[in-house]
């Protein structure tokens, strides 16, 4: 079963004070996320990621379209008992302690009192907040608030968790812990949908990603599909500080880093490269097919759109002149 089915959700805001004009925040979006996968929703700032999440949470209303979550209409309030949500840069009732906040949210999610009693310390420990009893949230750092945000999202043991920029404000250790947490959620059979503009996080975690830019979906697929091999190219890595003449003649693109050299050559030249390295008694470390990084793919997707947009603009302008 699909965990999320977005069926043409779109959002147009009316902006301006006196003369209101429409501003399209999200073009009609069609997207399906399978149950049990970690799905990355990628895009630069202002791409429409948060708008999509707000639409799914019922915080803003769509101009058109609908969605189904865990097989039910997304507007059904009962479905929210099975959903966890971490908003971007979360802010909580700062007069409460972390325990009180989670207790309140647990009550609203319908978690029973005995369950709350054992679940609250459990999730707080899970996000690395063990010594915070009695401390009001107004005394928490940004990173600690982010951890509280993650704790409240998973408190009621939801089947589907939405994280909006979950790594924001976290130090490297915290980011690692959140990655581990997401992987654990996946192992527990939960679906994780998270938005980010940090591609390394998506590359490390996601089964599939979608790229959105200027409110329009650009691409969806598994990371391996998107970062496909570059036709006929391999990366050769060997130990050394120089490029042997036998490799240089292959017009390899080589980079020396410390005592390691990386060279990119055509696939049909790899035997010649290995022979050249052997002759020079250099230690071959690896030969791997060259793949496009997610970052390269991402940038390409955004640039393609920018170019086509500017072409359209020029075309339109030319049309006007004619």
């Amino acid at each position, binding site marked *: 079963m699909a965990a999320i089915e977005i069926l043409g959700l779109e959002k147009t805001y009316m902006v301006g004070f006196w003369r209101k004009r429409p501003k399209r925040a999200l073009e009609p979006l069609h997207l399906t996320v399978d149950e049990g996968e970690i799905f990355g929703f990628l895009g630069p700032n202002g791409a429409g990621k948060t708008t999509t999440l707000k639409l799914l949470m019922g915080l803003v209303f769509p101009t058109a379209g609908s969605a189904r979550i865990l097989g039910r209409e997304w507007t059904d309030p009962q479905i929210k008992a099975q959903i966890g*949500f971490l908003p971007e840069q979360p802010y909580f009732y700062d007069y409460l302690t972390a325990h009180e906040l989670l207790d309140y949210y647990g009550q609203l999610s319908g978690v029973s009192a005995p369950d709350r009693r054992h679940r609250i310390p459990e999730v707080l420990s899970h996000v690395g907040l063990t010594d915070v009893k009695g401390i009001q949230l107004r005394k928490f750092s940004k990173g600690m608030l982010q951890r509280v*945000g993650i704790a409240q999202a998973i408190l009621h043991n939801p089947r589907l968790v939405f994280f909006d920029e979950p790594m924001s404000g976290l130090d490297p250790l915290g980011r690692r812990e959140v990655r581990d947490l997401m992987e654990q959620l996946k192992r527990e059979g939960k679906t994780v949908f998270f938005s980010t503009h940090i591609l390394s996080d998506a590359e490390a975690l996601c089964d599939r990603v979608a790229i959105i830019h200027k409110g329009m979906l650009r691409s969806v697929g598994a990371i391996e599909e998107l970062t496909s091999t570059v036709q006929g190219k391999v990366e050769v890595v060997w130990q050394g500080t120089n490029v042997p003449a036998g490799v240089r003649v292959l017009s390899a693109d080589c980079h020396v880093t410390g005592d390691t050299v990386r060279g990119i050559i055509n696939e049909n030249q790899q035997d010649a490269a290995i022979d050249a390295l052997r002759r020079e008694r250099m230690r071959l470390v690896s030969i791997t097919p060259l793949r496009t990084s997610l970052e390269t793919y991402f940038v390409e997707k955004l640039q393609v759109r920018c170019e086509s947009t500017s072409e359209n603009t020029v075309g339109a302008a030319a049309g006007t002149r004619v």
Partner: protein
Amino acid sequence: MSARILHIAKNTFREAVRDRVLYNLIAFALLLSGAAILVSQISIDIERLVVVNLGLTAISLFGVLIAIFIGIGLVSKEIEKRTLYTVLSRPVRRWEFIVGKFFGLAGTLVVNTLFMAIGVFGALLYVAHRFSRPDAWIFVALYFIILEFLIICSLSLLFSSFSSPLLSAVFAFSLFVIGSFANDLRGFAGVAHGFTRWFATAAAYLVPNFSTLNVISAVAHQQPLGAHLILQNTLYALFYTVAAMSGAVLIFERRNLK
């Protein structure tokens, strides 16, 4: 009442307590004890009148200020700080949130009024040395003051659901002032002509009639209050509160939380 409304109300009450809203009780206690000591020394036979008048007026004014200044931020602050996101992403309906907030603020005001009422009766005992039978009407005056708070809470929430805190405060306070003179407005409408009459009549019936809820002077002068007035004021306050709350819910149900 659904459990979720109760939890939201309890959290709103806790917020008010932790934001030291009940510290106004200290100011009230100082005011009342100072007044009780002063009037017992300078007035003859009107100590009771002064204490009841001053005490109940202070309860009303302190409560109105709390109702307006907390009420206007109940929704807008939650939107501005985005605390609402993690509440509405749970199985909480928007109307439950609004109603919970209302009960939380109303509960805060009722507790505040109870403490202040204890202060009034204490001051009364200090100046009069004993309670008399007409003092029981003070309870009715306190009940009407609470009804007044309910109306103001609902209006503050209504304005808070679509306007900025500053504008909401201006609207709510203006309505409180105009509503306090609602009977005078009706009197004026009776003698006016043409458009002025039409406008004054409409305004007199639209604004909340706080004059009818104000029986402080009558109670201070030990005048009895009729049962029909209690019933009429109860129904009026409930009707007005429900109408304002319905407006707040209708607006909030359609609002995009950008």
